[in-house]
């Protein structure tokens, strides 16, 4: 029972972090139709920006997180406006562009900060304990911030004109444009929103785990796996899948060990692709 409760706490914590990453990833695909291979790079960049703000500029950590969101959001905006926008309908070109951006970002961080992990610590330490069960305070803080961010994203998308416009573009771009919606403004905004979310996650999670140029690779893999499970382009699906991935990862790793735990997730996605290729909440675009 102790292990079950502990695994649940770990799973929810993982799920929240995965949700923030997956929402950004699927937002870009849903609205622009672009598979953003630089998503993990923005997570890493968020971590490094927050680290630089704390370690070199002496900013308090919450302000550093804010700067990280703004910096990654701004870079996402500029990248979309200057490069993605020109080739937005060419899937192969955007794939190569985003992959290229990721390589540039990781190499830049490697050159600037070196290959070793940074001494980047979360300002809150300790854990809430109830017998053998524990919940790290830093994870609780991240959980709270992530839930607020997810709620904020939901409010933006479902309660504002910007959100309505973005969803309209995602539903049917040509009809939305005929109604006067302008992709040249809205696409960069969507991209910035998504990369800002990745930057926020990086700034929150890297001081808890570790920060080095290699941290982006597993993030991209997890984001991809989550959005495939949830249905590419589906925001609700991504959020649901993120929690499923987190919980499954935690339970399978705790009960079956680290090796089988990783395998269980891939088997789950494989089964889903066989029986429900559009994902949990994705729409079927083209019949088989």
């Amino acid at each position, binding site marked *: 029972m102790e*292990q079950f409760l502990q695994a649940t706490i770990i799973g929810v914590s993982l799920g929240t972090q995965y949700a923030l990453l997956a929402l950004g990833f699927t937002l870009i695909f849903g609205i622009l139709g672009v598979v953003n291979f630089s998503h993990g790079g923005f997570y890493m960049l968020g971590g490094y920006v927050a680290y630089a703000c704390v370690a070199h500029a002496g900013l308090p950590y919450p302000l550093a997180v804010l700067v990280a969101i703004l910096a990654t959001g701004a870079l996402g905006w500029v990248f979309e406006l200057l490069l993605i926008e020109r080739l937005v309908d060419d899937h192969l070109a955007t794939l190569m562009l985003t992959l290229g951006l990721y390589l540039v970002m990781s190499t830049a961080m490697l050159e600037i900060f070196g*290959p070793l*992990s940074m001494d980047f610590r979360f300002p809150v330490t300790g854990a809430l304990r109830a017998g053998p069960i524990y919940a790290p305070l830093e994870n609780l803080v991240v959980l709270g911030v992530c839930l607020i961010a997810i709620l904020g994203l939901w409010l933006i998308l479902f309660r504002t004109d910007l959100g309505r416009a973005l969803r309209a573009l995602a539903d049917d771009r040509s009809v939305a444009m005929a109604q006067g919606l302008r992709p040249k403004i809205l696409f960069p905004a969507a991209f910035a929103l998504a990369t800002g979310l990745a930057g926020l996650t990086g700034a929150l999670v890297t001081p808890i785990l570790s920060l*080095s140029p290699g941290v982006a690779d597993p993030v991209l893999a997890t984001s991809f796996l989550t959005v495939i499970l949830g249905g590419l382009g589906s925001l609700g699906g991504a959020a649901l899948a993120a929690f499923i991935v987190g919980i499954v990862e935690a339970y399978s790793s705790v009960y079956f060990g680290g*090796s089988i735990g990783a395998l269980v997730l891939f088997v789950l996605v494989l089964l889903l692709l066989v029986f429900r290729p559009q994902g949990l909440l994705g729409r079927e675009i083209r019949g088989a």
Partner: protein
Amino acid sequence: MKMHTTTLMAALAVALGATAAHAQSCEIKVGAMGPMSGGAAQWGLAMSGAAELAAAEVNAVGGIEIGGKKCKVVIVPYDSKYTADGAAAGANAFASQDIHVIVGPVGSPEATGIKPVAARNQQLAWNAAYAKNALEPKFPLMFHIAPAPAVWADPMIKQVLKTFPMKSVALVAPNDQAGTDIVAVDAEKYRANGIQTTEEYYQRGTTNFAPIVTRLLAAKPDVIDTASSPPGDAGVIVKQLRLAGFAGPIGRLGGPGTEEIIRVAGGIDVLKDFFWYETVATGDPKVQEIDALYRKFLGKDPVGGTALWGNLPAARMTMKAIAAAGTAEDAVKIAEAMRKLPVEDPNMGKGYWTGGKQYGIAQELHFPFGVGIIKDGKNLGVTRMEAHPD
């Protein structure tokens, strides 16, 4: 027409000048390979740094004499990413640059990847792997930088028990050859000392170890040993173990990298009680001089921590072997020269060629090694452990 002729004459003069300059220059390229990014980056950078220092030392006295000419040694680094395919690709990349001598790679997956490719390319290479087949008689161009746990784990455990008595230990490592081979040997040595063992493995690339930590604690061990987990991973494991309330000693019968572990874990206070293996006796002032040598010859601070010190004798032996063989291209001749070299290093002292008993091929450098202890958040230093012949 006159202008055309003049242009041709000038081009010819430039071409002849370039050819003459090329004929006078003599350069030996030596590869340096290891993971230079990711959780094990410290080990790869240490390999590259050791090769650079050894090259700078010989270049400072005019280089290595080949065919009557003094040749400058240039180190070409390659990030093999702690993977078999990375090391195999690296060996081929070096072959395409006519590089036949490689200092590195580091880990077991890399050693597995490079052995057949380097043999095919006729390249001499070193590895620092702890795999059971780090050396094999069928790959005579492969040398071993330092012994595996089969040699040092037992004396190390006996040394550690003086500070941290224990009845049970849980070992954790990646689930590939680099992890399973070492944990199997470490566990055998712990059991030989009357200590119960449990083993736990994780997928390389894992970033959050909270589920693994839960499993480790379920076994209620006195001590947890991170074995050959890369320093970046080990740092996160230590941090999450302490957060989960584990108060016992944490150890490391595996590769060095304590500086990185301290940094990732959040400070020496978080480690609290910790022990680790050092490939060389890092408490020896003569060994510590290597950092000053690095700054003197290369004009920058060394990267890679104590692992650089451990790799330096192999890099220096490589330079000596090239000089003795009189070639940088014939790896067979260089290997022959290497085997005849006495195992002596200006910083490490006297060592031995070992490996004959364990691998059937005595191509392993064995110098005095060290056991480091941190007790109650205080670094008690590294105890020197003497090397012995096979």
